[in-house]
């Protein structure tokens, strides 16, 4: 029940809206923000059902995040880092033979449309790590008999690039953002889309306190 509720994309958004302070408006240049994000990874591509039916929302990853807004001309360069502390939110197997974590680093260019709304786009590096911690072999069912297979023992990381398109809603020291991440955009076969919902708070305002 709890995990179903947590898997809803709007959960963090609602939570962060409830916690948001209400003093002042607008995204702040030179502001350092921390927050939480939920990524619906690869929409309508993978299954979460024994029938193999594709899940519209993909699979969920939860991140802690940092973002900074650096003024560049009349835009903001807004690099962000989202990471999953392995001990906290990495997706792990019941027998602890592997964990999966996803680290993402984006460098979008952000433009404040209004005091409340901003739009941003830019490249994103994604590091998808499978942490193997198996201790040997495992006997698995093979229908009418069993077979012995190996468990993963190392950590291996895939590094890929994606492109981010999205917008943010700013309210006081709080910013809620929704972004599309486009994977494999130059490929004829690897294209897919993820959605990232982020809630952040300003914790440090360069040149002025929060």
């Amino acid at each position, binding site marked *: 029940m709890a*995990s179903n509720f*947590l898997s809803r994309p709007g959960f*963090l958004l609602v939570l962060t809206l409830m*916690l948001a302070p209400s003093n002042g408006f607008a995204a702040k240049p030179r502001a350092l923000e921390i927050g939480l994000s939920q990524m619906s990874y*690869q929409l309508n*591509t*993978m*299954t*979460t059902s*024994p*029938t*193999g039916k*594709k899940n519209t929302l993909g*699979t*969920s990853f*939860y991140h*802690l995040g940092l973002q900074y807004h650096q003024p560049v*001309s*009349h*835009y903001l360069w807004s690099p962000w880092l989202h990471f999953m*502390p392995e001990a*906290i*939110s990495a*997706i*792990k197997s*019941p027998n602890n*033979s*592997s964990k*999966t974590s996803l680290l993402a680093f984006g*460098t*979008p*260019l952000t433009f404040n449309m209004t005091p409340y709304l901003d739009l941003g786009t*830019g490249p994103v*590096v994604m590091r*998808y790590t*499978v942490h193997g911690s198996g201790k040997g072999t495992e006997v*698995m*069912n093979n*229908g009418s008999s069993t*077979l012995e*297979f*190996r*468990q*993963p*023992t190392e950590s*291996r990381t*895939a*590094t*890929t*690039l*994606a*492109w981010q398109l999205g917008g943010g809603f700013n309210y006081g020291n709080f910013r809620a953002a929704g972004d599309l991440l486009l*994977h494999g955009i*130059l*490929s004829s*076969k*690897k*294209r*897919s889309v993820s959605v990232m919902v982020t809630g952040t708070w300003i*914790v440090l305002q360069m040149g002025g306190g929060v």
Partner: protein
Amino acid sequence: MIPITRSFIVIALCLTSQTSAAFTLIGLKGWASTDIQFHVNPQNCPDNLGDLLDEALDIWNAVPTLSVNLSSGSDSAMTIEQVLAGTIDVTPSVHCLTDPAAVNMDPAYIPGAAMGYKMDDAGQITAGALALNVQEGSAANIASIDRKILVSILVHEIGHVLGLGHSADKNAVMYYNAAEKKFASLAQDDVDGMTYLYARNEFGEDPVFGGCAVIGAPQNHPNSWWSILILLLPVFAVRLRPRMVRKAVRSSPR
């Protein structure tokens, strides 16, 4: 800040409940080459096997974190007996068997199986084959199986040929039993397993943004500089604008 800190702790504790079943492996590594062609021996095979195989291969090709590039190769006349005897012309190969019991496949239950593995001293797979059951009258004859389920079975067996073992995750295509499958698609556990064997690196040897990896030849030079330039593109886009335009922008009211 205190309520925020508390909310972080509460959410972090909730997140620890996420679990997924683990994949397993045939060996510790996959194939040495990431450009792998499957060669079909058409004898006894249904006419649409090539289409089904391409569909199954593309399900693995679509995973963004994979470096491996799978495709159908030229037809082969090699038999499964030759593969098992080790006299191999091309590999991996695909065979349709009218007597699957001869290679220890139970025709009543097993529609397909991976076999004929060879590994080098480094543990990398150097040979493998995919055998399909076409025995007339048998319950697991692939001709009697729904197309979507058959593609799912091919995806499963290709996973074995590439080095994945079975998974305890019922959602995974690598789960041993396809009885509940109605669609051919991958679960997170399948992606994890294949990423473990063939992790893509777009800052290294693999083309950026998926590139033409699935339709072109492998590149021999690293992409690191291209990747870094793409990351800095937003900054360059602004900094390289003409000075006059920037002045005009600065002087305009915000």
